[in-house]
């Protein structure tokens, strides 16, 4: 019973960052909504960290985060509060992409 519940946790396709709480995390939440307009953004706030996820793929753009943050931001600055992430990652100069290649 409870083992089945554990097994079910595996059956998910959610990807995206797990951020340390702070202004960058808030900017990322807003950017996730703007940069992934067709997707529902799931936010799970655990106080010390915040899961920001979408189904199967999420793109975050440097320009959007900078706009939301209101101060200069380079894509690599995301790492300051990027504690973990779900899915695979692909990093570019002006964006970062979280994704799965398979669906379960």
């Amino acid at each position: 019973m409870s083992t089945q519940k554990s097994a079910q946790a595996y059956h998910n396709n959610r990807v995206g960052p797990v951020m340390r709480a702070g202004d960058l995390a808030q900017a990322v939440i807003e950017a996730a909504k703007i940069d992934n307009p067709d997707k529902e953004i799931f936010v799970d706030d655990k106080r010390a960290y915040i899961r920001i996820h979408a189904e199967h793929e999420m793109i975050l753009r440097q320009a959007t985060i900078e706009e939301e943050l209101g101060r200069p931001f380079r894509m690599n600055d995301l790492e300051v509060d990027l504690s973990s992430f779900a899915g695979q990652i692909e990093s570019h100069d002006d964006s970062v992409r979280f994704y799965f290649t398979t669906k379960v």
Partner: protein
Amino acid sequence: MALLNRMEWYNLARTTNWTPTYVTEDELFPPSLSGDFDLPLTAWEVYDEPYKQTYPEYVKVQREKDAGAYSVKAALERSRIFENADPGWKSVMKAHYGAIARGEYAAASAEARMMRFSKAPGMRNMSTLGCMDEIRHGQMQLYFPHEHVSKDRQMDWAFKAYDTNEWAMIAARHFFDDIMMTRDAISVSIMLTFSFETGFTNMQFLGLAADAAEAGDHTFANLISSIQTDESRHAQIGGPALKILIANGKKAEAQKRVDIALWGAWKLFSVLTGPIMDYYTPLEHRKQSFKEFMEEWIVAQFERALTDMGLDLPWYWDIFLQELNDTHHGMHLGSYFWRPTVWWNPAAGVTPEERAWLEEKYPGWNETWGECWDVFIDNVVDGNMEKTYPETLPYVCNMCQLPILGVPGKKWNVKDYPLDYNGRLYHFGSEVDRWCFQQDPERYAGHMSIVDRFLAGMIQPMNLEGALKYMNIAPGECGDDAHNYAWAETYRALRETRKAANA
């Protein structure tokens, strides 16, 4: 001066393989250190790290992280968080620092092996940064607890634990030596960075940070979650190596390494992180149960990513899921009962309210683990304290080095998994531990568990005093109940009430 964008020069800058002419390829990259997967140098040159970072970016970002962590520490230094913390929470910190801090230096050494010996230029690049990450983690996790050493002698174990033969440290060293100190560069990338760091470090550095934030220990929460931002980058070192192995028909070898590392990590976390989360952390500050954190970080996040890379769930998946309900309760019962042999003061965590929480999170807790605690509680209430301490040793597993245990009470399933190898009888705590051993028996066969050492007469005198001496536990460092049994008063009062009602 205008700077080029990173991606305009990154690929060129990390193309650092060349054709050796003065030495052979095997002399430049000895197979035992580089990873002998019968793949030519060119196969590794397609390695493409998904999480890219350059050295200038690294310095800037790390400086910002350090400024954050150290300024929070400085700001809260006078807030007397440690002095005012629940004794159970202090034990969380002691167990964490002792088991982890010095291991970070071992991880730096493992990263350095990838940095020098990996045939993949991108891996060498990322593990250069990873090595510096691990040195940072070691330094911070020795510096932060140091301020508490003068207040509490057990805090000294942050530095000391790794050099001792304390039983939990033997288990921790056995595991870390296996996945990072005695493996080639490619295996390290799979077993340490992929299996351990994309998976289990999240439990200890983010799951526990959530509890720390609830407990008001923002210095600790901020420190460990900051560490995990390094992990999330350098944990990505293993992924591309896995993909290369799979693409070159080496999936089985990759899978085996992941399965061994994952199991070892699980067992270690069942004794370290499980009791911390479900028993030591004060009830009102528990964000989730250990099992819920495991479901979140390991089942939903890590295993899902693992299969997305092209690997399979481990063959022991069902056993693992079942153990999420059980193993850490046994590890807690054991480490609490043998509490003089640990460097922290375990919190029993079995008040009526806590038991109700355990029953809710783990249905059946009361009729299994609870039955053992009933006996223990009666002994404390009756004043039979001598019965609450051990007189013998538990039998420990020759793979994970932790007590062999099963579920007690109404679901009794305690079982030994023996193996005769070259005339020596080995004992294992599970089918999976025995399987890990059998994958490479010569790697493990010569190791003596703490019980093997005891039976061989290496621990003298053969009693608790001799054991404590062997484990380097000095007087004043021995563990005892975190709350000095104050929680038993509730049960004493309950008994009085019952007696009065029956009178």
